């Protein structure tokens, strides 16, 4: 058999397998059941506008707070890790390794439930917003610290030298010369981190949410149980994608742009 003929036959066989699998699945599947339990239009319609005005809004607010908190922590940690003082470097490394090594859920439970037990009813203020976002922000800080550090190191050494030779202190040079350039470099990875955070706010379901403070996952799951139907989860999944897909698209655009600029 000729080589090209053989390759053609393999190709046809691969298409054939695909067609068979799809045919078998559609034959076995109960389409009515799938439609009523995942794509029930009535149940889906009932979710609006709350799924957007409450649940999606909460998800975005929680994410934003955790991100800002994480960014501040990450900047401090990155500078500590670049410090000439060994103890600061060690502390930063310990923090980063600790919170990257733990499941985010453990940190969130620790902040929300272990602290009140340990400190006699002390609660991190702000309810779910405060406790959840603090827990998630602590974790995000560990991840973003490495990103920021890499960004700072990616700025050419001559920039700091030029700034210092103009009489700027280390702090002034860092603030006005190095960090603005570093953040420009790391916008794509930071946006990726933001997408991860959006998804991680689903962990807040453990915090026992009230009606007004439910984020998307808890909102969808509670409705699923109440209506005994999977449609709420489908809707929630679509809302998640509506938020995350534009962001991931933005990242790939930005990455292409930076790649072209180099």
């Amino acid at each position: 058999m000729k080589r090209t003929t053989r390759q053609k036959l393999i190709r046809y066989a691969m298409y054939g397998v695909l067609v068979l699998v799809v045919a078998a699945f559609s034959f076995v599947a109960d389409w009515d059941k799938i439609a009523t339990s995942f794509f029930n239009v009535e149940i889906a319609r009932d979710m609006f506008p709350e799924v957007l005005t409450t649940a999606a809004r909460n998800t975005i607010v929680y994410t934003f707070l955790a991100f800002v908190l994480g960014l501040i922590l990450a900047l401090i940690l990155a500078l500590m890790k670049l410090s000439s003082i060994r103890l600061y470097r060690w502390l930063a490394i310990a923090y980063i390794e600790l919170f990257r090594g733990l499941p985010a859920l453990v940190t969130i439970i620790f902040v929300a439930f272990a602290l009140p037990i340990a400190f006699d009813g002390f609660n991190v203020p702000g309810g779910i917003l405060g406790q959840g976002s603090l827990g998630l922000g602590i974790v995000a800080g560990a991840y973003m610290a490495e990103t920021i550090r890499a960004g700072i190191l990616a700025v050419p050494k001559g920039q700091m030298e030029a700034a210092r030779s103009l009489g700027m202190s280390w702090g002034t040079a860092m603030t006005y010369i190095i960090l603005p350039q570093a953040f420009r470099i790391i916008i794509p990875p930071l946006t990726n981190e933001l997408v991860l955070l959006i998804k991680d706010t689903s962990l807040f379901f453990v915090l026992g949410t009230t009606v007004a403070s439910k984020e998307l996952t808890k909102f969808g799951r509670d409705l699923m149980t109440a209506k005994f139907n999977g449609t709420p989860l489908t809707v929630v999944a679509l809302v998640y994608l509506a938020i995350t897909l534009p962001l991931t698209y933005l990242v790939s655009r930005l990455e292409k742009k930076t790649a072209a600029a180099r």
Partner: protein
Amino acid sequence: MTMQPDPTAPPIQLLDLHKSFGELEVLRGIDFKVEVGEVVCLIGPSGSGKSTLLRCVNKLEEPTAGRILIEGIDITDPETDVDAVRTRIGMVFQQFNLFPHLSVLRNLRIAQRKVLGRDTEEATRIASEMLTRVGLIDKMDEHPARLSGGQQQRVAIARALCMNPDMMLFDEPTSALDPELIGEVLDVMRELADDGMTMVVVTHEMAFAQQVADRVIFMDGGVIVEDGPPSQVLVNPIHERTKKFLRAIEVE
């Protein structure tokens, strides 16, 4: 500790300066003095320590031993505010090192604002004056990436001048430039020299050294081998190593 510079002291004085990078001893005892208004060119083969010497003068490199006196102030003394001394020493780098995220005007303004505390209006006025001086006032709002190498280096010189330095250090200012752009940078430096600026220039431009320098210093192996007027060091060198170096670059 803030110490007032002594106007009668030499702008730059190095006393038995040593610098090692790990095992490698790059400077092995440099004694060196520059007088007010003097233009000194440092020449020598690569690895001879001339750039390291220049970078020690404003402490971009920490010397291993020895003393550095800038206008009479010992900047190797840990009590000295080096940042304050650096504002009086302009430095120009081989790679220009303009701040790429800032426009030309902001490049010239930022240290005036954040270090000298000048207000925006005054900083803009001085920046315009210096840009005019290097012939680039029309590029004020451009970003550095849109300028040619020669223009970038002229902006870098203007940026240093905005701090009203008492002296200027040039670290191979034309080595990263295309040949046709070298002239415009050397012209600006020549004007500076004519205006009486104290200058130390690490360079491979022998014609420039010949025409502009008051003194030429030949370095090799981390020591100063020969120090004298260009007519001596570049034309009738005393030392065999200087002769060999000059012959080698002539062949190029």
